[in-house]
């Protein structure tokens, strides 16, 4: 059991960081192991925002391998070198934790090349690389992660998030959601459920050159959608295809620079409650999450089996 939530404001920005924190905190009971946010802000003009990590949070309760934190500085130095070698310009760099960083860079080349160079550094994983997406995930509940990464006043149009109960893989940041749809800027995915044909699909996608970093079945959705988008499909079409190709019970949310979508498997075995108005759309595994940002009486409903919906910011 995991909890997923998303919110999208139509035509305006809001404190999506604070809203997502409240929504995810009210879903804590569905997954206390880790929390992740994919928030879509105003961006940094035409520059890319790079969120990456060079190690794991090794606090009590994780399954990550302990490393000497001294190694993080050395890896970060190597990442900076790779960014230079790729021809990108580094405009600002923030150290959020010992192992997690936020950079603003300008780059005109192929994102896949840049991503491959950065991830060639040992234990380095790009969490997100986009013009408005900022993907943050770590061990702990929504409040802990929001405070740690200063997300309480993050302004943006939309966001998705996840509270994870580890079932298919370990308790670490690598297996936490959301997943970035590598190598497409600004595409992220969160998922609640189990995919039963994970290995068949993973092998087929790896044969096409797509990259997997974790053993978490949810990553497959992000990679699957990335592959379809790479081949020219639009988001909604790719999501409809996923219902046919992915086996199992699942509900997932996907966000792009200006859209938020949801898909529910054909058995409707995983929950999703939806509220839609002229101003915003809010959706979550449980209505309590929506109530945490909209305490007044509202009309909500459950989307039906096999439904795919996409909303514009």
């Amino acid at each position, binding site marked *: 059991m995991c909890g997923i939530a998303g919110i999208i404001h139509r035509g305006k920005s809001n404190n999506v960081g604070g809203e997502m924190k409240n929504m995810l905190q009210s879903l804590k009971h569905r997954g206390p192991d880790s929390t992740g946010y994919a928030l879509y802000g105003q961006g940094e003009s035409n520059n890319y925002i790079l969120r990456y990590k060079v190690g794991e949070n090794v606090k009590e309760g994780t399954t990550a391998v302990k490393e000497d934190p001294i190694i993080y500085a050395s890896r970060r130095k190597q990442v900076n070198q790779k960014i230079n070698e790729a021809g990108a310009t580094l405009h600002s760099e923030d150290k959020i934790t010992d192992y997690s960083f936020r950079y603003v860079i300008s780059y005109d080349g192929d994102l896949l090349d840049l991503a491959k160079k950065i991830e060639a550094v040992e234990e380095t994983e790009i969490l997100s690389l986009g013009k408005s997406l900022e993907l943050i995930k770590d061990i702990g509940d929504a409040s802990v992660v929001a405070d740690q990464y200063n997300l309480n006043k993050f302004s943006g149009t939309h966001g998705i998030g996840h509270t994870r109960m580890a079932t298919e893989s370990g308790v670490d940041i690598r297996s936490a959601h959301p997943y970035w749809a590598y190598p497409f800027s600004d595409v992220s995915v969160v998922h609640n459920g189990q995919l039963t044909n994970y290995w068949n699909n993973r092998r087929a996608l790896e044969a096409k050159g797509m990259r997997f970093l974790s053993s978490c079945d949810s990553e497959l959705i992000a990679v699957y959608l990335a592959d379809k988008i790479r081949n020219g499909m639009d988001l909604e079409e790719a999501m409809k295809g996923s219902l046919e190709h992915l086996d199992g019970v699942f509900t997932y949310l996907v966000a792009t620079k200006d859209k938020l979508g949801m898909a529910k498997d054909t058995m*409707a075995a995983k*929950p999703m*409650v939806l509220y839609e108005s002229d101003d915003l759309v809010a959706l979550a595994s449980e*209505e*309590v999450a929506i*109530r945490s940002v909209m305490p007044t009486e509202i*009309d909500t409903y*459950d989307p*039906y089996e096999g439904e795919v919906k996409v909303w514009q910011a």
Partner: protein
Amino acid sequence: MASIKGHKSSEMGLHEEVLTGRTQQVFFNPEESENFVYHDSYEVDFNKRTEIDASNIECLEINSKIKELMSQGYGTIVIKNPGSKHSIGVGILNKLNLIVEGSLGYFGIGSVDGPNVRISGRVGWSCAENMMAGKVVIEKNAGSCFGAAIRGGDLICKGSVGARSGIDMKGGTIIVGGDAGAFTGFMMQRGRIVILGDVGPNLADSLYDGTIFVGGKIKSLGADAVEAEMTDLDVSWLKRKLKVAEIDKKVDFEKMTKIVSGKKLWNYDNLEPAERKGAI
């Protein structure tokens, strides 16, 4: 006459009773009125009314308060600001008017026997699961597994419901004013489901027994489900039941689709031979 004397379990000294006829008769003798009253039920007065503000309290405390108020004789309890919290109103084994002003989360009004419940908002998954008797009316929509495994009573949703409504249902009636999702009536064993709108795929999959009436379109039938002919008795029952359900929707009852089980299960309806004779 069924006897367990000589049975291995008896030889092992596990019990010594002798059962006669259907087991249920031992426990539910209509002559013995105490069989129909729970040992910890309360005498309540429907005219004695009070409120619970649920905004800052959790479900355990809300449910304890309901019980405490019933013990004080309150027969009408209004829950304000339920905030879609889970498991509110579960385990009420008493006559009671429960009015919920707002929406409930998952497992609301579960395992109840007797109360009359009205919810002005929406309910989440598994509303009224295992209900034995009473009436539950929801003004808006409901999530999946609506009325899972209910054994009796009337469960009414004036809006639409999610997937697997009436799953494992063993009796009672579910009435839905709007649409219903996939696998409605999945493994249903007794009772009736009425859906006035459309129904998703695999309706009544693995249906043992019971009847489902659909006013709108059916996406597909599940295994073992077949269409049956509407009778005058069905129409009169539907008219009466929808009136009780307070659903003001124009319905052409004669044109509704009736779904029943197309499969006879071995020894499912295992009446004693004497009772079978009486039925014939």
